[in-house]
């Protein structure tokens, strides 16, 4: 059985209030990937559609998109794992291709979050946690991640300033990424300036500047068998490793509050499958829905020892020129986080990096890239390793 490659990647700009319906949103990301791949609809054997369905009025969007994109009568599948839905979609596409069932599969991630209010959105996001035992206390995603931030600070001496440094890094690249929703500069001083919205408390110890924004967007990743990839593409990128794990939805069932077990477990699987270690990774996209999430990712992925993630950001090692560049496209913090589209966007960034086509964000000559994509508060963890 041969390798599985990625032959096309695309995404829309991530925006507030996309001026169109979800099928039109998905069309844009698909078109971008198809033009990147240079293939026709007849080359696509199946589609995998990925989103968090609570934001959609449309039930079962997969069939609707298959028709709108001109991909009927090919089969289509719908997957969700909250914020990591499109990484789960990639894993399904890999399996479909690897098994020989299909040769070329398009993974379509999307979310249109702007049709509901911010409070409604927080409530629905919060329902990605335990609705029976936790939601009745009034939970929301920033507060959950804030609890991990508090534990990380208490255990390791990480500070709110360390977290602010992560947001400043994100904005460095968000400013040069034309797909990002937040493109304004963010200065470290804003976090201590009461006049700046960045300093406003959301859920202690996290502030507005520590949180990513909701956005509308779609992404598309086209996966192909080795034979097809070589026939259809001049520069395929290969899927070297895949890892995925799940954990207790209720925080009472967790044994770790300074990191995410699912990320550690998914990383180990992906490293083992690829036959590499953390030291071999040249560029990474991590799930920075909150600054603390990126800090924990440094440690969970093995870029730093537990508690030493702060040293990486203080020394700017995760900047483009550093020893392990992380989120040099601005990350979720700058790009925004259209739940189902996020994983596909992360994959796109790494594919562009490995092809040497990331423009101003290009890292020097990377050979191996990693994507870390988390669903819920560490309910689902996905790590994908790609190589040239």
């Amino acid at each position: 059985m041969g390798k599985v490659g990625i032959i096309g990647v695309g995404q829309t700009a991530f925006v507030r209030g996309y001026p169109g319906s979800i099928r039109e949103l998905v069309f844009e990301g698909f078109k971008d990937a198809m033009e990147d791949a240079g293939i026709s609809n007849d080359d696509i054997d199946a589609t995998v559609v990925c989103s968090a369905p609570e934001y959609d009025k449309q039930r079962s969007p997969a069939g609707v998109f298959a028709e709108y994109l001109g991909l009927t009568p090919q089969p289509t599948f719908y997957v969700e794992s909250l914020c990591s839905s499109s990484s789960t979609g990639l894993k399904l596409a890999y399996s479909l291709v690897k098994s020989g069932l299909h040769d070329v599969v398009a993974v379509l991630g999307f979310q249109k979050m702007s049709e509901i209010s911010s409070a409604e959105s927080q409530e629905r996001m919060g329902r990605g946690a335990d609705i029976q035992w936790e939601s009745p206390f009034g939970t929301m995603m920033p507060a959950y991640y804030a609890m991990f931030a508090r534990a990380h600070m208490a255990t390791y001496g990480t500070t709110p300033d360390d977290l602010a440094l992560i947001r400043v890094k994100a904005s460095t690249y968000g400013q040069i990424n034309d797909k990002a929703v937040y493109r304004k500069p963010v200065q470290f001083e804003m976090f201590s300036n009461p006049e700046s919205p960045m300093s406003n408390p959301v859920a202690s110890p996290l502030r507005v500047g520590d949180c990513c924004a909701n956005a509308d967007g779609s992404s598309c990743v086209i996966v192909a068998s080795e034979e097809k990839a070589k026939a259809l593409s001049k520069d395929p990128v290969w899927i070297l490793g895949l890892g995925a794990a799940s954990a207790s939805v209720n925080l009472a069932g967790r044994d770790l509050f300074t990191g995410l077990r699912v990320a550690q477990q998914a990383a180990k699987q992906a490293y083992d499958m690829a036959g590499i270690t953390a030291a071999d990774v040249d560029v990474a996209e991590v799930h920075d829905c909150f600054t603390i999430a990126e800090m924990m990712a440094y440690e969970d992925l093995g870029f730093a020892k537990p508690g030493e993630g702060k040293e990486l950001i203080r020394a700017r090692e995760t900047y483009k020129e550093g020893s392990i560049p992380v989120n040099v496209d601005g990350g979720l913090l700058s790009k925004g986080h259209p739940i189902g589209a996020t994983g596909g966007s992360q994959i796109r960034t790494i594919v562009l990096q490995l092809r040497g086509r990331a423009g101003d964000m290009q890292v020097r000559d990377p050979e191996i890239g990693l994507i870390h994509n988390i669903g819920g508060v560490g309910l689902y963890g996905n790590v994908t390793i790609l190589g040239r």
Partner: protein
Amino acid sequence: MGKKKDVDTRFSRFGTVSFTSITKVNDFIDYLEQGKVMGTRCLDCGLLFFPPRADCHRCRASNMEWFEVTGPGKLITYSKLEFAPMGFGDDVPYAIAVLDYGDYKVFGRIAKDVPEEEISVGMDMRTVVNRLPDGQLNYVFQKA
């Protein structure tokens, strides 16, 4: 006309807004009424569950007894919310937290009358039943 079916929706009384009304551990609410916060213990293997469960995944059996959450637990972490999801706006600000009891952990809120400057990770806290003004029930953490 058929007889109206009795539906046991006691669990809809849990918390500020309950998203679940029917569960096999509905007695949890009756215990809250009696001032007790209860978990379940598997009668076959002894595993403790909090929050309570009707089923033991280890034994794949449903022979449970109730046990009371008593004494102090250690505060693992907490966060004070300045914004709230829909339906909880009147409660802001409030803090959610996790206590470690050794064999199990408890997720809940810190009591409103505990001043923030007195909260620190590692401190001992107790879990106590709390009655909300509209008759809903939950539990909160008090200083031990």
